[in-house]
């Protein structure tokens, strides 16, 4: 028991944080929010998987991946392919020249299902694919890079290029991928209508459950000796290597694990939102995921969830109240996080009260000087 308590829950402090988060997402949100807003939160929480993966990878392992969107996308696409096949039964697609295949294939004059789509008619295969394909892809990238000691900025940029390649590939091969439109109009899972309010609520709770499980699993990794080696690799890679460790294997493992987590998020995204598109694979979402982790505090698993929620709530709120201004605010927030709160929300939480007030007073001063009308509201909100 004490093993579980110390290692996974993270002791008293970790447990408190976890309980607060669980209360917030499992009780408070469902009670306070209507089904539309709850579904939105559910969507945001799928990004939190990627943010958590970046805490492991970047915060603790020092490996900045600008390609988590790749894995989020792979997971999401695997799930979308399954759902699309179900939605494309011959009865539903009588209007097409080739009934029984996804609509976009028909538009692109395909007359039969490509071979790699076939296995996705099985849910078991799909669930395995969501977990294994991204991890396997990460393994290939990881072995090629880490065995050759590609790291730091180079790794970041190469992952970014891979994200671009994948996007161009998906967009360019629209006959089999749905192109830039993505795979849309997904409605049922084994006959269960995933667009209904009740289904969305159930999916929300499944999503929360998975997220909490992922956090616990990540905790387990971070509190094990593996976690300390990860930190050690981040700070003094050579020392670890000359302590007899094959450093590359550790990096590959955490990269694969992070890929798998992100992919779960992607699959849950598809289920809750009802479609998947290449706009989740490219650079922009990948960098945004890093920002979520940074805002939460790059070392804190739970912080990553709050960071994701904060940015996305902010994005939605700003874009509803000042649709033409939200880029200013979001951009300003990124800079502020890097400049003023490098440890993110988690850092603020750990700091002393007077320290926080001082920092807020400082921002308030800057903001009120530069753009009074727009920023005042934000400062109030932040308080």
């Amino acid at each position, binding site marked *: 028991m004490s093993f579980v308590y110390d290692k996974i829950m993270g002791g008293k402090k970790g447990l408190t944080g976890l309980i607060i988060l669980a209360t917030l997402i499992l009780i408070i949100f469902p009670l306070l929010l209507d089904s539309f807003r709850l579904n939105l939160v559910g969507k945001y929480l799928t990004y939190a998987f990627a943010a958590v993966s970046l805490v492991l990878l970047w915060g603790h392992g020092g490996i900045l991946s600008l390609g988590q969107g790749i894995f989020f996308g792979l997971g999401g696409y695997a799930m979308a392919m399954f759902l699309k096949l179900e939605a494309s039964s011959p009865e539903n697609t009588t209007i097409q020249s080739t009934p029984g295949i996804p609509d976009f294939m028909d538009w692109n004059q395909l007359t039969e299902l490509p071979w790699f789509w076939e296995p996705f008619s099985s849910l078991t295969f799909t669930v395995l694919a969501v977990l294994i394909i991204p991890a396997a892809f990460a393994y290939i990238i990881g072995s090629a890079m880490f065995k050759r000691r590609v790291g730091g900025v180079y790794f970041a940029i190469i992952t970014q290029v891979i994200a671009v390649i994948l996007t161009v590939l998906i967009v360019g091969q629209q006959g089999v991928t749905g192109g830039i439109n993505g795979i849309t109009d997904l409605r049922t899972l084994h006959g269960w209508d995933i667009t209904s309010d009740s289904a969305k609520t159930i999916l929300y709770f499944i999503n929360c459950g998975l997220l909490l499980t992922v956090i616990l699993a990540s905790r387990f990794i971070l509190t094990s*000796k593996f976690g300390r080696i990860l*930190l050690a690799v981040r700070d003094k890679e050579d*020392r670890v*290597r*000359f302590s007899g460790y*094959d450093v590359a*294997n550790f990096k590959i*493992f955490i990269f694969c694990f992070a890929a798998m987590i992100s992919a779960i998020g992607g699959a849950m995204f598809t289920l809750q939102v009802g479609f998947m598109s290449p706009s989740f694979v490219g650079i922009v979402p990948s960098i945004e995921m890093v920002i979520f982790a940074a805002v939460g505090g790059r070392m804190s698993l739970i912080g990553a969830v709050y960071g994701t929620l904060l940015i996305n709530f902010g994005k939605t709120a700003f874009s509803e109240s000042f649709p033409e201004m939200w880029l200013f605010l979001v951009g300003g927030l990124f800079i502020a996080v890097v400049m003023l709160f490098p440890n993110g929300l988690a850092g603020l939480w750990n700091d002393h009260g007077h320290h926080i007030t001082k920092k807020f007073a400082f921002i308030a001063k800057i903001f009120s000087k530069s753009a009074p009308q727009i920023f005042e509201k934000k400062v109030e909100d932040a308080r």
Partner: protein
Amino acid sequence: MNMQTNTDFTLAIEELTVSFDGFKAVDDLNFYLDKNELHVIIGPNGAGKTTVLDLICGKTKATSGSIKFLNNELIGLSEHAIVRSGVGRKFQTPSIYENLTVLENLEVSYPHSRGVFGSLLFKRNKTVLDKIHEIAHEIMLEQMLDTEAGLLSHGQKQWLEIGMLLIQDPQLMMLDEPVAGMSVKEREQTAILLNKISKGRSVLVIEHDMDFVASIAHKVTVLHQGKILATGNMDKVQNDPKVIEVYLGH
């Protein structure tokens, strides 16, 4: 391994050469290290001292030549394999994990569960803790086990790194400038420590501080421009005219 003739040496380096874009940092080097020998390499800056250590532990790839450790060829092995075969190395600037405690530093260096899954399932049991305490005692840090390593003094960091090697019980220990930045008292303590740990293993040290060298060295080798200038005991080397010229001529 008994097929070879030079079985007596812990380390046998023969005809070792490495060049960087044509510049030969180590040039046709032959060097032997006995069991239980504490050997110090000295030499002016750029002599290739650190490069020799880099070559032995696999950090730099040799252009040609052979490095045999207990009669096993090291060239071509990966770094972690070399370490696992029994070679430990301390870096010039103390290389410890500043965000981990002293205990965690030693634990990470503990030579078990070095695989990914082993480390995930590793448990800090009594055997591990006993060994950590034993080593911590030896390096005079037993009172500081729960201190974050970043808060240690410079000398203590050097000791900690030595401790991190000791816990692996290597047959060959290589120490790059172990007393740099230490107070006089710390130097004395380190000398005692080194004399103690050289029992039962071979130790290769790079050092500039001649008094310190004199207090520990069984044998001294002077390296100059990638070649051995002189080798032997301290007195012999100090009085070698070539050595004097290199040191004073610069």
